[in-house]
């Protein structure tokens, strides 16, 4: 079958430094996939390559059949692939609502997500819509980051460590929203260092280690030990 998102033999570089080596990866429409791996394994680099922040050969990444490996980030998001970047990366000089609105800057895809549906999912953001994002708690900031990505109405949402720096209870709150996002047929890639958290919410997983895929499959089919050694390389 041809998946919605297809990565074949992806090598990614920062200057002379090679961060990814021959990655194969795919995501079906509406599927949820976890990418796990230790610090520096290359998880963020993989997402950045998908979103166009790291450039590659054109056919290393195909989205709905189109080669997008060397496309610009600004045009990729218009095709329906949105990234929630690591560390949230909100725009400090924009208010909460403006941060959401700017997510829809591309403007080509308008449903199902708009201001009111995002506010329905995260009601607290409606209350704080005029605040500066710097005044929000970490969890609220993460909601803005997710809402901002949803505003482009992506068919694939890439989430880079959305649990980073948040209290466990807040992490659960946020993960509870993922099914609601998938309801609309949106595929999701979650990157996490917390293996258990990631595997609980996804259909399949990829484990990265030093820029290579060391294990992939369904969470239920992989043993603790196999994951452990794929993760740490022991």
């Amino acid at each position, binding site marked *: 079958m041809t998946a919605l998102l297809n990565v074949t033999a992806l090598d990614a570089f920062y200057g002379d430094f090679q961060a990814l080596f021959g990655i194969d990866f795919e995501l079906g429409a509406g599927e949820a996939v976890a990418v796990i791996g230790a610090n520096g394994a290359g998880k963020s680099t993989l997402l950045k390559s998908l*979103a*166009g*922040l790291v450039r590659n050969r054109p056919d290393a990444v195909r989205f709905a059949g189109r080669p997008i490996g060397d496309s*610009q*980030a*600004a*045009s990729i*998001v*218009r095709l329906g692939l*949105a*990234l929630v*970047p690591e560390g949230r*990366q909100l*725009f*400090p*000089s*924009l208010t909460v609502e*403006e941060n959401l*609105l*700017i*997510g829809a*800057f*591309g*403007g080509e895809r308008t449903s199902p997500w708009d201001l009111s549906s995002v506010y329905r999912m995260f009601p607290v953001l409606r209350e704080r819509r005029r605040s500066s994002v710097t005044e929000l708690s970490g969890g609220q900031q993460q909601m803005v980051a997710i809402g*901002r990505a949803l505003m*482009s109405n992506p068919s694939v949402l890439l989430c880079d460590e959305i649990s980073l720096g948040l209290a466990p209870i807040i992490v659960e709150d946020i993960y509870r929203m993922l099914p609601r996002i998938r309801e609309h047929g949106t595929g999701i890639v979650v990157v996490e260092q917390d293996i258990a958290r990631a595997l609980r919410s996804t259909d399949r997983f990829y484990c990265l280690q030093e820029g290579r895929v060391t294990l992939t499959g369904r969470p239920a089919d992989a043993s603790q030990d196999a994951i452990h050694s794929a993760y740490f390389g022991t």
Partner: protein
Amino acid sequence: MIGLDTVIEGVLLGGVYALFALGLSLIFGIMRLVNLAHGDLILLAAYLVLSVTTVLGIPLLVATLLVVVVMFVAGFALQRLVLERVLGDDILPPLLVTFGLSIVIQNGLLLVYGADSRRLQAGAFESSSVTLGGGLSIGLAPLTALLTAIVAVALLQLVFYRTSLGRAFRATSDNPQIAQLMGINERSVYAIAVGISLAVSVIAAITFGIRANFDPSIGPARLLYAFEAVIIGGLGSLWGTLVGGIVLGLAQTIGARINPEWQILSGHLAFLAVLMVRPRGLFPSRRP
């Protein structure tokens, strides 16, 4: 000694300086670019308006519109063809390129128009004035300049804080890479910013060119006044820039009242004084 008329004159002059400053402040805020050719571009705009009105015989208002469009396109092209290639972490290349541009424009104008002083003709408007009580009267042209500055600041403020283009400007200024993830094309945002900067400069050029003589050599001084207004007002604040322009205008007219030779010097000294006591300007933006 320093009468109300001096104060009024200074405030009105400040309007012109604020108009000089807006374009400079705009592109510095969005792309951290300091355009050393800013003053010479203002003069280029003034000469273009002069040519369009005298050679083609087009009325001033229509000429203004025409030159605004021309300068917007020129700014867009300047960014895409030249500045874009040198913008980066190193501050040296863009400074040197815009400095080179300043020399080219200044001497190019000298070649085409000669060194003589020129002035834009606005008919009766130039000399008419409104009379206030107590024997005070205000020239219509300077008053219009100040009002234009206020309107320009308000409009830019509106664009910045109420439109999707303005959000794109601020987001790109915060973090150009993440802005791209939003579908914002950084290259066009920058090019539009430079275009707007030059379009605003046309307005500055006209309000200035009606009330004072100009010749090709005075561009750099306009750059310095613009810069002083920006710094006095505080980086990142458009209303601050307006106040900065007015402070500069006041300093210059008051200095000139004390000794005609001190006009420009007083402005520079006021700038240095503000830098000494309030290095972030009178109205710094809250952003770090």
